[in-house]
């Protein structure tokens, strides 16, 4: 019972464990995510040209010292557009994941705290939302509120809530039954305090796992909506929109734009799902 027995070997080991736990594929995925995030953050510093301004005389150029990845149908620098495109793609997906995770966590905590009828009612509402495919809900929102990144982002976030809420509800319920929550209840703490101070921190790992997994899906869905012309509007640079705008050039024998933007989407989505899987795998293996 001395102070020495209170040492925290777990904390010291954490750094080394991380690499082992991620594995080569996981490390590659983490590096890719880090690079994309840096590219998005520092796009104005890295970009060689203004992403939205081109000159028609310079259209469809191949890679050169001036234009590292060539130019598009309007003579805009593709490298710069990809960098700026990372911004909208990541930002949109981040907002979706944030809102969906937050909404799901709130519903899960409410269901777990009140239980019984409230839990059953929320379950019904979620089942109803489950019935709508994500993209359909987003398209419906566009029909009502008009096109734009904000509209589709919020609509997608709502359509993701049932997924996050379902998983988080079961973890929150498990915590709710543990003695520490009942001890807090017996101390006379309010439901809000018990939920936020005690239960929430203990379901954060699952919130993060869900966020990592959903991030990839959100990127694909947003890219698809932009591709359909419902999300990000031209001339803003966005990967999904770039794939769509490259369509015509594709037919004329200039596939770079669609291919580069498509590759960015695939690589980013793959990286996020690998990380999500690692997080999920650890939880699944850690306890059951």
């Amino acid at each position, binding site marked *: *019972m*001395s*102070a020495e*027995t*209170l040492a*925290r070997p*777990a904390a010291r080991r954490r750094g080394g464990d991380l690499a082992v736990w991620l594995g080569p594929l996981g490390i590659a995925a983490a590096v890719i995510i880090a690079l994309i995030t840096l590219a998005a953050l520092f796009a104005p510093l890295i970009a060689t040209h203004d992403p939205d301004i081109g000159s028609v005389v310079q259209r469809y150029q191949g890679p050169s010292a001036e234009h590292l990845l060539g130019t598009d149908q309007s003579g805009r620098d593709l490298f710069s557009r990809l960098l700026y495109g990372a911004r909208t793609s990541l930002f949109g997906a981040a907002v979706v994941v944030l809102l969906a995770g937050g909404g799901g966590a709130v519903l899960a905590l409410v269901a777990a705290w009140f239980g019984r009828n409230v839990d059953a009612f929320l379950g019904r509402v979620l089942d109803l939302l489950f019935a709508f495919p994500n993209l359909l809900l987003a398209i419906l929102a566009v029909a009502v509120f008009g096109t734009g990144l904000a509209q589709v982002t919020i609509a997608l976030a709502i359509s993701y809530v049932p997924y996050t809420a379902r998983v988080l509800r079961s973890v929150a319920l498990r915590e709710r039954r*543990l*003695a*520490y929550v*009942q*001890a*807090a*209840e*017996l*101390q*006379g*703490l*309010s439901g809000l305090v018990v939920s936020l*101070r*005690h239960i929430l*921190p*203990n379901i954060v790992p699952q919130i993060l796992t869900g966020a990592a997994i959903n991030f990839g899906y959100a990127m694909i869905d947003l890219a698809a909506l932009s591709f359909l012309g419902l999300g990000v509007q031209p001339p803003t640079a966005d990967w999904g929109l770039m794939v769509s705008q490259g369509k015509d050039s594709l037919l004329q024998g200039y596939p770079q734009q669609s291919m580069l933007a498509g590759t960015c989407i695939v690589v980013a989505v793959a990286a996020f799902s690998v990380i999500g899987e690692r997080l999920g795998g650890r939880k699944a293996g850690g306890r059951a």
Partner: protein
Amino acid sequence: MSTTAENVIEISGLCKQFTTGRGRKRRTVRALDDVSLTVADGSCLAVVGESGSGKSTLARVLVGLERADAGEVVLAGRPVAQRPRRAERRARARDVQMVFQDPSGSLNRRRTVEAAIGEVLAAHHRVTGSDARRRIDDLLDQVGLRPAHARALPGELSGGQQQRVAIARALAAEPRVLVLDEAVAALDVSVQAQVLNLLAEIRRARRLTYLFITHDLSVVRQVSDEVVVMRRGQVVERGSTDQVLDHPRHPYTVLLRDSAPRPGWRPRLSINSDISSDTAEAEA
């Protein structure tokens, strides 16, 4: 037995059923079947009985974690509300606290000992800062822990230490009654003895009332003045500890006593088959 005025716990006609499953698998269990009992202020009542006899359900209804189907609980002179409001729950916390069986589950794994106890002090006594630190050290000292343990997370403590923290947290609210549901069952025998002694000391020092739930008869004599024996949700026997343990009147108590392992104990098949035939008959 004492007069009403001195009873800090009065339970009368408590019933509680649980229904599980649906359709043909639907089953109803009578966890509490017309339970009445009183506990005198400052005494320790042990509740014994085999697994599933309703001991935990009794404790949970008593502290207000579970609602009874019928019956009444009067704690410290006031009836326990079935749907307590927030203010009621806060006030109740100063009457009764509970220590749970599972030491690791009864502490939030992400909060330090200090945070766990400090939260109670802040909520009930508006004590914060250096005053709280002093109170926390005091409480830790009372349960046999050192100030260094205040910074520890539950995962860094042994089961016995965790249970001591849970006891300290319960004491922080300064309740009159402490309900201990198998509070030492998860600890090994030597640690069990330490914690039991500690609990006895605390009770004497603070004039607390204990409701001590256990399925382990060997523990009972160490802690309690009186014993009630529960079986299938009913109280089958009540009396002073010595009387019940040395001269049990109900055959079930005899069975419980004789099937408790003790030094030199040898399993007797006849008793084991007695119990199983008994249980089978109950379920038929």
